[in-house]
């Protein structure tokens, strides 16, 4: 597979880093080369957060993403900041429950998904991130949705077993969402 560079950005508290971790573990179980780089520092304390995930079948060079293949934007400032960095032909996932703006570029594929609203409606309010991840995997055959259960089980600690099913539910909601 070709190297896929995924940039996830939003507010602190939206599970930006967790979504990235999930994708990194997905790569790990599929024996890919993986890097996961979080923003750290003031952002973690309530401002904006972002996370760089690279999945590849060759060794990862720089873990810092300057031109993402895939952008997940979970708030407007993140979309505005990164929309022009996405490579032509890349994908942008927009949480349309939080972002009214439309992407004006025509050389990228844009997926609008009201993830935060969907999460609220399904009583999984903190899992909008995983809804988008589910949608992303469904729309990226080379990353594939299959095997997500195993990854969730790896990531969610045993003492938080209740979260296991909720994460799976969120992923399925995203998978089945039709643009």
């Amino acid at each position: 597979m070709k190297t896929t560079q995924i940039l996830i950005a939003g507010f602190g508290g939206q599970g930006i880093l967790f979504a990235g971790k999930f994708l990194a573990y997905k790569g790990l179980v599929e024996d890919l080369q993986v890097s996961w780089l979080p923003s750290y520092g003031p952002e973690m304390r309530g401002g904006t957060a972002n996370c760089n995930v690279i999945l590849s079948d060759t060794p990862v060079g720089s873990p810092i993403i300057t031109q993402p293949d895939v952008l997940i934007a979970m708030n407007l400032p993140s979309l505005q900041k990164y929309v022009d960095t996405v490579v032509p032909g890349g994908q942008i996932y927009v949480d349309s429950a939080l972002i009214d703006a439309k992407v004006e570029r025509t050389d990228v594929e844009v997926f609008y998904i009201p993830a935060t609203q969907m999460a609220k409606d399904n009583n999984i309010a903190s899992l909008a991130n995983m809804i988008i991840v589910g949608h992303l995997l469904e729309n990226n055959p080379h990353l594939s949705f299959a095997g997500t259960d195993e990854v969730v089980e790896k990531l969610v600690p045993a003492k938080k077993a209740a979260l296991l099913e909720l994460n799976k539910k969120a992923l399925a909601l995203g998978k089945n969402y039709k643009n």
Partner: protein
Amino acid sequence: MAERVLMKGNEAIAEAAIRAGCRHYFGYPITPQTEIAAYMAKKMPKIGGVFLQAESEVASINMVYGAAAAGMRVMTSSSSPGISLKAEGLSYIAGSDVPALVVNVQRGGPGLGGIQPSQSDYFQATKGGGHGDYRMIVLAPASVQEMASLTIKGFNLADKYLMTAMILADGTIGQMMEPISFEDAEIETYEKPWALTGTNCERKHNVVNSLYLKPDELEAKNFERYERYKIVEQNEAMWEEYMMEDAELCVVAFGIASRVAKNAVAAARAEGIKVGLIRPITLWPFPKDALAFAAEKVKGFVSVELSMGQMIEDIRLATQCNKPVGLCNRCGGMIPSPDEVLESIRKAQKGEF
């Protein structure tokens, strides 16, 4: 195939240290290396080890000095401003010839600086930092796997040569996660007959000390120490070469900068520029021979650094200024993009350094 686990660079250091037999960790929290202390706080009590958050950096390095004198595998970790505070202790440890591992996950400076990644403690790590004639072995990991393997290597070398080994990492490598495996870890153990373990009234007591009031004795100690350093320089330099076989230009970079530089070298090769990369893995001893050898065949060097240009001086020394050395740098927590490095390579190709 070896089992791979995903870990943060900082956690990899802590886990590797434990596997290397370190049971004493003394530290004081500072971003971006706090995960090391957090990991130790969680693990050490469960395996009969000591995790102690000291009242300050100065206290923690002196606790390291004490445990090292007692023959323990011991470590501390900090980030740039904290390492400055530990400098006095580093000098005492060197003056007493005891082994220790010290981790610096660098952030931007000088002063309190910032918390984003940097490599601007290169001078401090490789040229001193503390007072007096001394050296530290300085290891510069460029991946999470190397955070682990060089930590183990650092303990081995420290014990072998009775000196401090420093892991000189940066905020990016500390914070990022990559898959790693511990299966190839080679852990060496060394007898420590000099250690302060109690005589049991069966032997003469040992002394660990850095005070020598008679100048001839102090001079002899320094001469002896530098004989040992000479052996380290002869035997322990480590580096990686990438696309150097037919290279006409050589990029030199360590740590996170080398990862960015590798992307740029690959991009330049795609444009037909014959460029390679030398990545020093040990910053002291600096891989002088590799650079001197490269200087015979390339037309120039580009040093890529997250500082105002510190390693560049060692490149010039190693190559005896035979070839021009350009600088591609960002600092203060900024990281050059592969495109910026590529631009420097293109310029060097045209003879602009």
